[in-house]
């Protein structure tokens, strides 16, 4: 069952109601935006709770143990319980912290990911706003995450936090380049920056049975672009093996060292949501978005994104952490050249 008609119906009803109150158009737009925002915020919270649980269970099973089992069936409510605990904790502020910057850092980190959700197409017609530059929008807006980490690192007035901030900035700026290059090869084939158009460009099949997804197109260049994208995406979301900014064995908790309670939870929320955004981008760009047989589009999209999230989790529990120099070398000496050559190859393929 497609969700888009239902959403349209609700929106029309709300719009009609507001118009009957005689409000000006931009006020109605704002109210609608507020409703979407709260929906997304709720969705994000649920998502993060679910993924934390998934991660703990998957990691447990990878390591041949059970993971949380006590709260709820197979521990499904464990994360909720943890969140409640965090909510009750005292909010400790270091005495020497740069107060405002310290306060704003988790908020900016949350806002950056939150804003990215606006352009994610959760299914056919299921998107808050289909920007005509959607892909670049998401890439651009998520860079605020770096700022938030730098803010947290500076504001905490703690050397571990500062080092974590430095590392994250260097890492994210470096890995943005191969990621954008990998995205560009898709954008070049699709001929559009809009998320919807990119998904639509992947409709149908090749040779009758291979889905017309970019991962399969221009074999093997689509696949290479996907691999580069996934590596760079893992680094962008600061997850293992690229979790240097918060490497617990070196920097306690990196930029989040001085945070506690709800602010700490906010960083967690942002991290897991960013993971989802990355998976959603991967799905849209390479795995055909919502396309798929039999099932409704939003279910296909959800399935693909969850699959990619599971791949990210699998990475985390499989690979050891890199050293800083290895991290930089991987990006500048391997991924960027590969991505460039791949881009060139795709371009030549498209032209010839």
């Amino acid at each position: 069952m497609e969700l888009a008609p239902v959403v349209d119906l609700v929106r029309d009803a709300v719009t009609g109601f507001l118009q009957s109150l005689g409000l000006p158009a931009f006020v109605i737009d704002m109210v609608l935006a507020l409703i979407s925002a709260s929906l997304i915020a709720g969705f994000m919270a649920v998502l993060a709770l679910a993924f934390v649980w998934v991660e703990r269970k998957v990691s447990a099973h990878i390591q041949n143990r059970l993971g949380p089992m006590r709260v709820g069936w197979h521990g499904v409510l464990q994360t909720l319980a943890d969140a409640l605990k965090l909510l009750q904790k005292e909010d400790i502020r270091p005495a020497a912290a740069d107060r405002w910057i310290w306060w704003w850092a988790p908020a900016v980190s949350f806002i950056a990911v939150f804003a990215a959700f606006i352009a994610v197409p959760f299914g056919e017609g299921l998107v808050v706003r289909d920007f005509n530059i959607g892909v670049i929008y998401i890439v651009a807006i998520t860079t605020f995450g770096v700022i938030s980490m730098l803010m947290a690192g500076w504001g905490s007035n703690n050397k571990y936090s500062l080092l974590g901030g430095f590392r994250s900035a260097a890492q994210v700026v470096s890995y943005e380049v191969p990621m954008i290059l990998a995205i560009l090869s898709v954008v070049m084939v699709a001929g559009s920056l809009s998320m919807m158009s990119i998904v639509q460009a992947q409709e149908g099949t090749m040779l009758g049975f291979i889905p017309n997804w970019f991962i399969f197109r221009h074999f093997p260049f689509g696949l290479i672009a996907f691999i580069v994208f996934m590596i760079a995406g893992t680094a962008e979301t600061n997850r293992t093996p690229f979790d240097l900014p918060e490497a617990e064995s070196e920097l306690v908790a990196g930029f989040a060292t001085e945070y506690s309670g709800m602010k700490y939870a906010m960083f967690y929320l942002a991290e897991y949501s960013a993971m989802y955004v990355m998976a959603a981008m991967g799905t849209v760009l390479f795995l055909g978005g919502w396309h798929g047989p039999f099932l409704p589009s939003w279910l296909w999209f959800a399935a693909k994104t969850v699959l990619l999230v599971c791949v990210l989790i699998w990475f985390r529990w499989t690979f050891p952490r890199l050293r800083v120099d290895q991290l930089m070398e991987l990006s500048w000496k391997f991924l960027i050249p590969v991505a460039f050559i791949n881009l060139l190859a795709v371009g030549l393929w498209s032209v010839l």
Partner: protein
Amino acid sequence: MTGESLAFYGLAFMLVGASILAVSVRNVFHAAMYLILALFAVAGYFVLLNAEFLAAVQVLIYVGAVAVLVIFAVMLTTRLTDARVRAHNEQVGAGLVVAVAMFLAIVMAMWSTSWPISDAAPAVDNVRTLGRMLMTRFVLPFEIASVLLLAAMIGAIVIAAKETGPPQSEEST
């Protein structure tokens, strides 16, 4: 009061306020934060002016790279315990006078100019048009800009890298 003018004045408040704070606060890190706010406001103006691509580029390049670089420089050059030094030099008065005079002069000059204002509809799909222009009429500036970036990158590395020259050959005594 339309939505557009509301957005304009809201962003103007944000931009001007952030700019003034960016050049006046003592803490350079805070100044960088206000700079980011101002950059974000400019990106908002770009959206208002039908330049969505430029807005995205503004956020991507300015916030994602330039501002990060500025914050890096702040972190590397200023110690956390900021010494109590003057934030401004002794030509504050003269600078203020020149800035205000400049503002008045430019505004007057602009007002006294007749601008050929056009009523044509703004271009849609300007990403495609921009790309095409970059690759045809403006291909030379485009290439030069890329060379400039490369030169800047190498130059920055050369300037900022620590001296690690070849080992000094031992001189005969």
